């Protein structure tokens, strides 16, 4: 099997789908001739032409609005928003139109748009290149929200997203585009080459939407997380010596409650982690759901490890990022509670 980093896996997902289905088109800022600022669409325009890989004006609202219209006319658009921090100008089209079109027309119209966008910090991008706004989208019914944590899932989930007749907002944690990251910025970067999930089939396969995965089996405590923090959680399990079960949510909405709840019922303890700011973040929904589902099994309050409730500060990236230290402290906090 091929070794791919997340960028290559995402590119490959595009390639596979554009090859299989001539209705798949790609649009976004700098995605065409240049191949995207993160290179996720590199080579696609050369292969599929500029009528299917389209350089768009700098207008996130226009990109999503036009993509919706294309989708209504039988295409299957994949729109790239250059950074998740810049998705807000397209927010109205996502919430008011994309998410509701099928509902309001009783299924007569729908638009199978996939919106891909890199999110998260840890690349010294400052507050406008580091945000994790996924929680907001999970509150919008009618769209699916996805965030992969590795190349294998990225490709499989992206193919599933493109194939889905439902709109999907697909967040790509850019900190792990090139390799997993365990939350310690002092350590040398590692590549996906040595990671089992860096093995990615060249061809078509899917990872179904709506299914969480146990990323590390364990007995003492469940860490529910997704994206970059999956790797931090695994590292913190090793670092603390606590036998954590790490659940990778993968599809944030709709949520695979059963996999999460089963794990917490088993371990009796739960830590929830994400990079996004804590207050009203997606972790709140996870905590609310788990306390409800697992109340009688919980031996300690559910704890959250998350970005602080501030914008992402350029200078204090590592004090802001919920890295190894904070994850470990969170594990200890939950383990110590009785």
């Amino acid at each position, binding site marked *: 099997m091929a070794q791919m980093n997340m960028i290559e896996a995402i590119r490959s997902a595009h390639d596979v789908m554009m090859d299989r289905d001539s209705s798949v088109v790609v649009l976004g800022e700098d995605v065409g001739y240049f191949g995207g600022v993160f290179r996720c669409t590199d080579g696609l325009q050369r292969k599929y032409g500029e009528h299917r890989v389209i350089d768009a004006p700098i207008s996130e609202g226009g990109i999503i609005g036009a993509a919706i*219209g294309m989708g209504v006319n039988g295409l299957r658009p994949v729109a790239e928003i250059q950074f998740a921090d810049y998705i807000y100008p397209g927010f109205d089209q996502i919430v008011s139109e994309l998410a509701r079109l099928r509902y309001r027309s009783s299924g007569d119209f729908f638009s199978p748009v996939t919106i891909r966008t890199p999110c998260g910090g840890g690349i010294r991008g400052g507050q406008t290149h580091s945000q994790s706004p996924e929680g907001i989208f999970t509150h919008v019914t009618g769209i699916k929200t996805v965030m992969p944590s590795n190349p294998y899932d990225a490709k499989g989930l992206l193919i599933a997203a493109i194939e889905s007749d439902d709109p999907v907002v697909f967040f790509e944690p850019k900190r792990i585009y090139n390799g997993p990251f365990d939350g310690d910025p002092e350590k040398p970067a590692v590549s996906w080459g040595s990671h089992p999930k860096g093995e990615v089939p060249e061809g078509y396969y899917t990872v179904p939407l709506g299914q969480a995965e146990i990323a590390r089996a364990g007995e003492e405590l469940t860490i529910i997380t997704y994206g970059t923090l999956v790797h931090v959680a695994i590292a913190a399990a090793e670092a603390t010596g606590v036998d954590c079960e790490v659940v990778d949510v993968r599809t944030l909405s709709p949520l695979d409650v059963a996999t999460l709840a089963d794990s917490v019922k088993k371990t009796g303890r739960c830590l929830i982690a994400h990079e996004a700011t804590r207050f009203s973040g997606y972790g709140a929904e996870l905590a609310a759901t788990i306390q409800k589902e697992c109340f009688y099994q919980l031996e300690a309050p559910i704890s959250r490890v998350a970005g602080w409730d501030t914008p992402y500060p350029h200078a204090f990236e590592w004090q802001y990022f919920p890295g190894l230290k904070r994850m470990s402290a969170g594990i200890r906090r939950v383990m110590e509670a009785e």
Partner: protein
Amino acid sequence: MNSKSRLQIPRPTARPGEKPDFSYLDLSPAGSIDKPPIDARTRDIEHLSGGLVRVLDEDHSAKGAWNPNFDANQLQVGLRWMLLNRVFDERMWQIQRQGRISFYMQATGEEAVSIAQGMALRPGDMCFPSYRNQGLFMYRGVKLVDMMCQCLSNTRDMCQGRQLPIMYHTKTGNVFSVSGNLGTQYPHAVGWAMASAIKGEDHIAASWVGDGTTAEADFHHALTFAAVYQAPVILNVVNNQWAISTFQGTAAGQRRAFAARGLGLGIPGIRVDGNDFLAVYSASLWAADRARRGGGPTLIELVTYRGGPHSTSDDPSKYRPKDEWLSFPLGDPIERLKQHMIAEGHWSDARHESLVDELRTEVTAAWKEAQKHGTMTEGPWLDPATMFDDVFAEAPRNLDSQRRRMLEVERGE
């Protein structure tokens, strides 16, 4: 603070109690505007955005290069649908006033827009309407009873009770679902048209927004994308002078015509007498042909007047002279077409009266039929369990369990 303020606040020419004043409208005489070839360069046809394309003259004759030279039958088709639109609106307004539907919006005075443009487009062309395009739905084959059932949110409602009255759609008739959010349909039309071009088809798209809506972001997005990719689309601005209580000057409509909004992007604009059925038809056909042959987008401004209140929730006497419509120099589109047909010998007051009667009967029959499928107070009822359908293609677990929960609560469990 007021006294020293230097801010310039646009003001309508007349408020309640004042004399209506439409002197701000730049009018051109019927037949005075040339009709350029459809492959003319934008730069060479800028003047179309400043003048006013008119065919029907004061003396009820049809004049000039934009005259589509309709035969009696075509004229009667147009008149019939405009009248139906008017009669339907009147009836639905009453029905709302009786508390039998929750909300309604009329297109009174603007019927030429939907009908003439509907006729100028081909069935395979896709329409992205605003909430005042009910005429388009009718003309494109949606039955009156189905429109009424939508307004009733009853068991035959095409929206299954999910939408406010008038938010119709028709998949087979190629009219997109009306949105409550202003202007969002504009970039959809452009994207749809881009897809049509990508697929190598010659269907075009058309969309409609009001004068006030031009201030929204989607107006800009649509124009930009249409210009960049030369999308085969007609972008219409229905300038009915008012946006609820806000007159068109608050959307900068007084400095320069809305038709000129695309010029800076290289999109030609035509300003049309929106109450002149023949002019609207002809300008739209010109733009459609242009788009279909690869000439790209056209912006059409349809100068008209919102004859009624904004909606059943509105009271225009609070913000504009009661008799403003009567002074509107472009008159009433139905009356103008009728007089033209009479002048041409194709029509008479008597035939008109009997057509109105016939349409009223048709509407009454439809209303009777519609009520059989349920009203606000009487069954049959839509199954509330359906409210969980179509959020996604397939209901995920949370929706399924909420559906069960809802039914339990409703059953008092």
